């Protein structure tokens, strides 16, 4: 029987950042965990400009974006349905002022990705043209660590 033991000397916070631009109606970002480490995802924080067809960065959420977090390969969504960006996480819609929502309170997930697992973020939205690009800043809050297997 093998027993997993955390090797605390090998663990550290690891935050993964990506800006995703919505160039097609569905865009994805994949993060593959290191083959020698496991990755405990605490949660996800999202910021987006809030745009409509007239002006960029106006804090308008009438053309919403939807988010989904998936354990890729197992086709395992971590929530059943895509969630509207403004309901998903903070700081959320940046608005005209750029920082109107300064509270950063990530969407808690607490999910363990093991060796070489792939986490996929999927964004859906309406394409609004080059004047009003949809994008989202994604920040994964997590910790990477190594497990020792002992018999």
């Amino acid at each position: 029987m093998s027993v997993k033991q955390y090797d605390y000397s090998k663990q550290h916070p690891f935050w993964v950042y990506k800006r995703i631009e919505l160039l097609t109606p569905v865009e994805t970002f994949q993060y593959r965990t290191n083959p020698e480490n496991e990755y405990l995802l605490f949660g996800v924080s999202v910021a987006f400009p809030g745009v409509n067809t007239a002006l960029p960065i106006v804090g308008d959420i009438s053309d919403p974006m939807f988010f989904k977090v998936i354990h890729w390969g197992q086709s395992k969504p971590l929530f059943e349905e895509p969630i509207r960006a403004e309901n998903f996480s903070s700081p959320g819609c940046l608005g005209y002022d750029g920082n109107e929502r300064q509270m950063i309170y990530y969407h808690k997930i607490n999910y363990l990705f093991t060796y070489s697992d792939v986490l996929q973020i999927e964004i859906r939205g309406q394409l609004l043209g080059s004047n009003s690009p949809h994008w989202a800043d994604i920040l994964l809050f997590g910790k990477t660590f190594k497990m020792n297997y002992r018999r």
Partner: protein
Amino acid sequence: MSSVLQAIDTGKIKDLQSRQHFDAIVLRGEVPAVAAGGSLTAKFNLASYGDFLSQDVTGSYSTLVDDGAGAAVDDGVCHLSGRLYDGQGGTPLFSDMVPLNLWLTPGRRRTTGVLLDAAGGVPNIGSVLFFPKNLVHLFPASNDIVLEVRNGSVLLNSF
């Protein structure tokens, strides 16, 4: 109760307490404008401190930009991004440079020349909530705490 007291080794606890204390480490700097390189590395040397167990991180930054006519305005948009390392050239704690508005509160530090909104009013700078972000990591005394910061603005910004 007496059995609990017997189980507590006050001598050991006092010894442990005498060798540790709470502290806050400040990293600050002024990041040059893009034309002047647009980057700065702030470091804190732990050698005289000892090991440092980080529990939370918090911070603020300026949001200055040029209005196009040569005047400095505070547009409220974060132009700085940063990356933390455990030691110079050591373990990166972030995958990439992360915009500071995604991980630092209270965040924006309001300065002079606040840009008016589309209706001509002073924009609401929002709820400046102090919400330290958990960043639990033991920085050994032999390492520096290193924060690399980049500025995307044509003006100098500080953190």
